[in-house]
């Protein structure tokens, strides 16, 4: 089965600028007051959206990918507008060069593991194989996806998302429900990918979690969300200390 992206003209931005600016207002029912109303900028190589379930984290990621079109939204990545409702700018999701792994992510059931991973790279098997190796999944290449365990599935999803060398990686709780060993193995794979890339082509990562331990493990810039608003932003230790009240609520 042939892959997809061969002829797609990707949006290219500056290589060293990795900033992502987002401003959006969105309500899930038409005509209601915006349940999501936020404005933030990310400049760190790894940022985390942190907040209780229902805070709007997944919605934000979907707005960045373009899979969701909020009522009012502006997404500027590397100095370039991907979405700007005020100016009627909307770059189609498949042209944004964004990688996404979410809890909803599905492997293509009609393709093998290797075919899944090379879907986004014009059938480049070498590249796909290298990605699988990075996540210790090379031995799964010929498997049907129905035969994979939950952990194996997650490895393949990450390999598949990274194969086309996305300009930005979005992770929507991809480690939820996985045991600690597997989680740190996947993170190692991810760090391996980030470090062997050409330093001039930084790929920023934005991940979403409601798990406090994950925030500390990532040592990232944190944005704290609550009820559709940005509560705080900054270094994990400082920010989370100030948000103790909400953390307690999450832990309960």
């Amino acid at each position, binding site marked *: 089965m042939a892959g997809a992206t061969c002829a797609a003209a990707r949006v290219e931005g500056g290589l060293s600028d990795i900033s992502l600016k987002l401003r959006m207002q969105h309500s899930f029912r038409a005509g209601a007051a915006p349940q999501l109303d936020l404005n933030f900028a990310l400049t760190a190589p790894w940022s985390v959206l942190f907040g209780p379930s229902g805070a709007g984290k997944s919605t934000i990621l979907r707005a960045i990918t373009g899979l969701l079109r909020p009522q009012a939204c502006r997404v500027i990545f590397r100095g370039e507008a991907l979405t700007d409702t005020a100016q009627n700018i909307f770059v189609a999701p498949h042209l944004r060069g964004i990688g996404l792994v979410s809890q909803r992510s599905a492997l293509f059931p009609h393709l093998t593991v290797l075919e899944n991973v090379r879907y986004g790279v014009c059938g480049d098997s070498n590249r796909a194989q290298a990605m699988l190796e990075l996540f210790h999944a090379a031995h799964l290449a010929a498997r049907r996806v129905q035969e994979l365990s939950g952990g194996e599935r997650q490895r393949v999803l990450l390999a*598949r998302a990274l194969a086309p060398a996305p300009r930005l990686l979005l992770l929507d709780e991809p480690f939820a429900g996985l045991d600690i060993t597997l989680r740190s193995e996947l993170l190692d794979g991810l760090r391996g990918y980030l470090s062997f890339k050409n330093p001039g082509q930084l790929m920023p990562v934005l991940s979403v979690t409601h798990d406090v331990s994950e925030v500390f493990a990532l040592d990232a810039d944190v944005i704290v969300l609550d009820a559709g608003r940005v509560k705080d932003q900054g270094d994990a230790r400082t920010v989370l200390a100030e948000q103790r009240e909400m953390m307690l609520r999450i832990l309960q």
Partner: protein
Amino acid sequence: MDIQALLLTLRLAAVTTLILLAIALPLAWWLARSASRVRPAVEALSALPLLLPPTVLGFYLLVMLGPETSIGRALIAVIGHPLAFSFSGLVVGSVLYSFPFAVQPLAAGFRAVDAAALEDAAMLGASPAQVFRSVALPMARPALVTAAVLAFMHTVGEFGVVLMLGGNIPGATRTLSIALYDSVQEFDYTSANHTALALMAFSFVALLAIYGGRNMRGGQSGGRLV
């Protein structure tokens, strides 16, 4: 058995199925994905032949394609003869009559395709057309087989529309089911029996193709009828 009628029936069913799939694929995809307000109306309209007596459909087509209406007269001016009582007329009738049998399984099959897989394909750089071709279509393949077999067999078995619209012209509009009816009218039960047996065997093999394929695929959703 009437070999000429058999060949004509197969030709009619094949042409009808090809035309139906060409129309039904994009329509079913739209029905499965669209949130448009006119969707229910389109869906109801496309399912109408399911409930409509075939003679009703045949009657209106006969009137519409004949020289009494402006549509019929325009058609006659373009192709030189009335569509009624011709093979092309039968194709038009069959396409309309078997329409739901192609659209419904396909729409159900497309609805069963995991939306997350389609979004993932887009995130990997696939354009909407590529998503359809490389993900949606292969994932809905059992439904495609079902739609093709049902459309084909439904056309093979149709009677009312053919009788109304095509009459009984050997080599042009005399299909197997008409030949069967004829044999009975003439009390030629032996010949009728042969034709009926052939039609029955045919239907059984077609269903075997659907269910056999479904089994081999490990019970993937096939997109059932209605």
